């Protein structure tokens, strides 16, 4: 009990110091002078209540824990609540089908706002899946992933602006160019390890952003690039003559293109644009998923994971460590390039503000939260990280506070991520 009392006093004291100066006192201005004012009396009430609560909870910790049920709940993962492996195997196929069906149906059953949000989620899924190759599979900590995203976005924006190239021509190019950047950066830095690699990639991300901001003649600098055309749907026209045209989802199409609604003889629905963008994003995500699933099962994918687990063993088996790392880096960058291309098309306007370090952090958080290497986990995490701040809109200015708190809580509750990657394995039963 005495032991408890001192630790309770300590905890209460800590709570007091954490809350009192910042919440109880306020730096405000009187005229042009800075003064310290005290907060309204109610705030002191909250502080006191908080301190007392911490004190009593600490004091009667054992009793409370006993009340709550003997032991502390073990930190777990969602997998603990999921069915066992055997039933899972049976459920997987219909489950996946159901999800795909749901994703396809989404824009038709949900409202426009929800569809647009889902598009944003899909962009992050793409980014998360791409970074997952680098961080989750190959185990290389990349804090500058957003640079490749920017390369993709600016590729499309610039080519569309200066040469009038279409989205479909720029998409592969954006990916390719981002991959090239990944390759060029990867070449010198991949002999760095761990945190050193992290800071160099971070620096690289910042350099790209500052260059985009400074090279005003090329990139528009802080003004960014506006009026980026939306993607079109290629279709075959037969009426005046046999030709391929792009269907645009606008009221009136630009030259050489046909509005989607006229082509099909429907009335104009502004929401169709949002739906089309969503479906396009979904297609890109499915493609990404498919390609990465294949890659993981190919020798190069196996090598990524092997390298992550044990570099020295890999080398002694004759694997070329630089080539493997470089391939992961390049692949990851390519997907960011695709995502960037699509992002530019969705926004219609890009500037360097969209490619700041915080964006890299959010993508990294998606990968880690998802469970490092697990694709389903990454998808889940992307949904969670994008939706959470949206749901928290009701909390207005507390929104980011809640977001930060959730990140901490989720990591503590489930340090392995939402759905850690599982390999097919055999367990020996112990008798």
């Amino acid at each position, binding site marked *: 009990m005495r032991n408890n009392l001192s630790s309770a006093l300590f905890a209460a004291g800590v709570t007091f110091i954490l809350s009192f100066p910042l919440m109880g006192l306020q730096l405000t201005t009187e005229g042009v002078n800075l003064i310290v004012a005290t907060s309204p009396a109610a705030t002191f009430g909250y502080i006191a209540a908080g301190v007392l609560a911490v004190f009593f909870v600490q004091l009667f910790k054992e009793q409370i824990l006993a009340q709550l049920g003997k032991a502390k709940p073990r930190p777990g993962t969602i997998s603990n609540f999921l069915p066992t492996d055997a039933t899972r195997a049976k459920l997987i196929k219909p489950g996946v089908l159901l999800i795909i069906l749901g994703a396809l149906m989404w824009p038709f059953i949900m409202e426009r*706002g929800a569809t*647009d949000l889902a598009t944003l989620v899909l962009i992050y899924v793409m980014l998360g899946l791409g970074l997952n190759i680098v961080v989750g599979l190959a185990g290389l900590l990349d804090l500058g992933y957003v640079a490749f995203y920017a390369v993709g976005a600016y590729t499309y924006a610039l080519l569309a602006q200066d040469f009038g190239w279409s989205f479909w021509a720029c998409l592969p190019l954006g990916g390719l160019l981002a991959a090239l950047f990944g390759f060029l950066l990867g070449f010198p830095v991949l002999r760095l390890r761990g945190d050193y690699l992290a800071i160099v990639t971070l620096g690289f991300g910042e350099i790209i952003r500052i260059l985009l901001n400074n090279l005003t003649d090329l990139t528009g600098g802080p003004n960014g690039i506006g009026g980026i055309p939306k993607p079109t749907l290629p279709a075959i026209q037969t009426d005046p003559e046999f030709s391929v045209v792009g269907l645009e989802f606008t009221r009136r199409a630009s030259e050489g293109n046909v509005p989607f609604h006229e082509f099909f003889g429907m009335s104009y629905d502004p929401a169709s644009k949002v739906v089309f963008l969503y479906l396009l994003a979904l297609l890109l995500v499915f493609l990404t998923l498919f390609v990465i699933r294949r890659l993981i099962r190919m020798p190069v994918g196996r090598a990524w994971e092997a390298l992550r687990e044990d570099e020295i063993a890999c080398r002694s088996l004759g694997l070329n460590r630089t080539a493997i790392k470089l391939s992961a880096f390049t692949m990851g960058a390519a997907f960011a390039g695709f995502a960037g291309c699509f992002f530019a098309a969705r926004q219609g306007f890009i500037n360097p503000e969209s490619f700041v370090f915080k964006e890299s952090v959010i993508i990294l958080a998606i990968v880690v939260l998802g469970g490092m290497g697990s694709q389903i986990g990454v998808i889940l995490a992307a949904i969670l990280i994008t939706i959470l701040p949206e749901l928290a809109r009701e909390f207005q200015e507390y929104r980011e506070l809640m977001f930060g708190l959730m990140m901490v809580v989720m990591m503590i509750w489930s340090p392995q991520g939402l759905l850690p990657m599982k390999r097919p394995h055999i367990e020996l039963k112990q008798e």
Partner: protein
Amino acid sequence: MKKKVAQKVLGLSASVLLAGSFSLANAETIKIAIAGPQTGDVAQYGDMQVIGAEMAVEQINAAGGVNGDKIEAIRYDDACEPKQAVAVANKIVNDGIKFVVGHLCSGSTQPASDVYEDEGILAISPASTNPEITQRGYKMIFRTIGLDSHQGPTAGRYIADKIKPSKVAVIHDKQQYGEGIATAVKKTLEEKGVNVALFEGVNKGDKDFSPLIAKLQKEKVDFVYYGGYHPELGQMLRQAAEKGFKAKFMGPEGVGNKDISQIAGDASEGLLVTLPPAFDQRPENKDLVQAFKDKSEDPSGAFVMTSYAAVKVIADAVAATKSQDTDAIQEYLRSHTFKTPMGEISFDDKGDLKGFDFEVYTWHADGSKSSVN
């Protein structure tokens, strides 16, 4: 003020929820979205917008509403991030709102306005000064603030004609707003044959400008124009004073904020600022200013009155056209004059204010300002 906002949050969020669920049943309210940064590092400007717009809503409703209908303001937070701005715009479409007061940052207004134009939602930005926004032939996009391309020449002409410095440096913060104005100033100065020795960007958020100041000292610059906001210029003034660098400084309305005197102290005395006329100083706004003070809110923020005016304009147009048809309203806006705390305002074809002039003021160390004329 923050505290008050914080305590209101629960009530507000409840009312937002209610508003959302009863949107169909209650067709009599006129909903106006206030879209701007309520979080993030420019939230302080979002605060100005919110207090201005909400004051307008409150006062219009207290005076009987618009043709008997009440206005309801709903806040949307874009954190000044372009990607969130598009999401917010789509959410506003989704929520069936026809009027937007926002966004604040030009980088947010630009992508969001594509959506508004498409959907026939009328948006009035109280703060975005980038010329590009209204140059795309959009019908639905207006603003109750001047343009960078107006402010720059005003400043440039004043420097060239009145100050006649021997060597000028033009510095900016590499943001859309700051660099835009700085470029316009530089252009005007060069046309007038003034020697611009240095045109350079600094990083937003930087604290230490001593290398730059030493450089200015070495170049013997005697006049510095800064395109950007008050935190950076305040630091620059302060450090320049410490280093004994005695050039005259000038900035746009983004620096014309009491905080600059707080940051720079005595060094802010004599700073030149181009400002929209100080609306809160006008005698006819005395009651309004008092109303802000009663709620312990600060009416002097640059976007408070412009946000108030934006709401007022929408309310007046709705009252006059007796409809919420935005197409009729945008035509009405282009063809009529409105009485607002900013004075009588009217819009040109592009959606910009007609005859919105900036004036040159001298700033004083106690946070006050006086006209140079």
